[in-house]
């Protein structure tokens, strides 16, 4: 039901269009590649668009779908049924998870198409000039899409946990967005932890922060996967997936515990 509701929203279509525009426009902006490979630029542009609009989608749509149930009081009708609070929340999550999956699939397919088309053109040029033709990995792109889906799912789980406690949609969106930013910068906390320091309190806070917040940067291995797939070990990918699943599960559990005590 959550998926059906979400897929009908113009906001979703709007973000798909924006994301697609960003992916497609990467070809036009490739002169800005600053000396890097053209395919790398297109890939980075596409990855960036997927993350930016995907994060917006994950944060805003998760909060919106949750608060729509509260504000319209459809939650009253649903929770009066033999449906536990946890089931309600997990149902919301899976609806959002499906919409995020659709978003990632569409944009990944589009990015793959753009990369393939440009790779064909560059291959012809390379043949003519006797250089090595650039290439990209479709399987790497598929794995990257899966990782992005997982990253956005973690974001959705975090926002759902926030929404379970929050009183307003705006608060949930703002805190969710800040959490995404913090998750992207979490690697800084980990870096600082490795440096010697005398302050136990400081170190404890950083340690806690690095554990509570997921490191969203760890999902940023698109370059290596798509353009140099042989350099990424499957075990590393496995750890990233496991970490993502654990964080999503932990935040869903936290959200369920908080929501259980919420008065509807």
């Amino acid at each position: 039901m959550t998926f059906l509701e979400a897929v009908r929203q113009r906001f979703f279509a709007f973000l798909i269009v924006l994301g697609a525009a960003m992916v497609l426009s990467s070809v036009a902006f490739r002169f800005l590649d600053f000396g890097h490979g053209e395919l790398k630029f297109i890939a980075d542009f596409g990855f960036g668009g997927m993350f930016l609009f995907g994060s917006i989608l994950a944060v805003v749509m998760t909060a919106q779908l949750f608060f729509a149930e509260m504000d319209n009081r459809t939650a009253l009708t649903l929770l009066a049924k033999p449906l536990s609070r946890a089931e309600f929340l997990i149902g919301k999550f899976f609806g959002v998870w499906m919409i995020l999956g659709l978003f990632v699939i569409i944009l990944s397919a589009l990015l793959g198409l753009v990369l393939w088309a440009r790779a064909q053109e560059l291959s012809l040029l390379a043949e003519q000039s006797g250089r090595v033709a650039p290439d990209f990995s479709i399987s790497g792109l598929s794995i990257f899409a899966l990782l992005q889906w997982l990253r956005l799912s973690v974001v959705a789980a975090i926002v759902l946990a926030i929404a379970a406690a929050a009183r307003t949609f705006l608060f949930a969106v703002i805190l969710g967005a800040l959490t995404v930013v913090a998750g992207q910068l979490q690697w800084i906390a980990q870096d600082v932890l490795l440096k010697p320091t005398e302050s136990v309190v400081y170190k404890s806070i950083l340690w806690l922060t690095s554990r509570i917040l997921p490191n969203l940067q760890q999902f940023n291995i698109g370059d290596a996967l798509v353009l140099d797939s042989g350099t990424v070990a499957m075990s590393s990918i496995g750890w990233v997936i496991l970490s993502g699943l654990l964080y999503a599960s932990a935040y869903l559990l936290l959200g369920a515990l908080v929501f259980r005590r919420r008065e509807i």
Partner: protein
Amino acid sequence: MNSAISVRHLTKDFKIGLRGLKLRAVDDLSLEIPRGQVYGLLGPNGCGKSTTLKIILGLVSGTTGEINILGFPSATAEARRRTGFLPEAPYFHKFLSGRELVRYCAQLSGVPAVKMDDAVDSALELAAMTEASSRPIGTYSKGMLQRIGLAQAIVHDPELVILDEPTAGVDPVGAAAIGRMIRAMRDQGKTVVLCSHLLGQVEQVCDRVAIMDHGRLVLEGRVDEVLAQRDRHLMTIEGLTPEARLAAESTLAAHGARVTSVTHPRRSLEELFRELVTGSRDA
């Protein structure tokens, strides 16, 4: 157990503001709602009846006290499996058809797949929504929304049905139809708890009523009993002239009038309600 709902010493305090001041919404409420009847729960706005309903349905937890539904603690899935609920001013996803909504609610309520079609058809038929069931809910009138809400509340054949303002905003024809549906549910052996501000309808439909005010139970009993004014008598007299009406029974007999029955006069539920909650009698 004869009670559909058993409420014992229920109290609910809400914390207000940062200082945590308490607002007592329900104050030591005890109530036994018998099975197989239509029970009216009445009270002015802010009296605690909606809070009581929400606690019964497990949407809000009580501060102290105990509630059982059909023998099960109210917050359990077992209790909710046996309960159907229509909230006040129901809102449903507009892109669903009526049939899709009822089917969805049937799935959530645990109706087995083999019985699904029959259950949905029966609920739509009782709610007189079979013809309109394939249309999107977004095209429904207010009365149709209430009726489809009723259908989703009863699709899983619950023993207890709770209706919060089922006829609010509905025209008299639609309200009468909903009244007939409520009586039909009672005839099927269900217990119906009805919250409504439309006292005329409550008086017609309900077997028993409870009136709340400021979180407390003010009055409870059979509708006929609570409305009867036992300190007064009603005499039906034949051949009575206008002058003789003012005299006593013996004086009436001396004037050639014949008393054919003596019954207790009945005031309206609305009069009683106003008298109890405002503390003054109507002239």
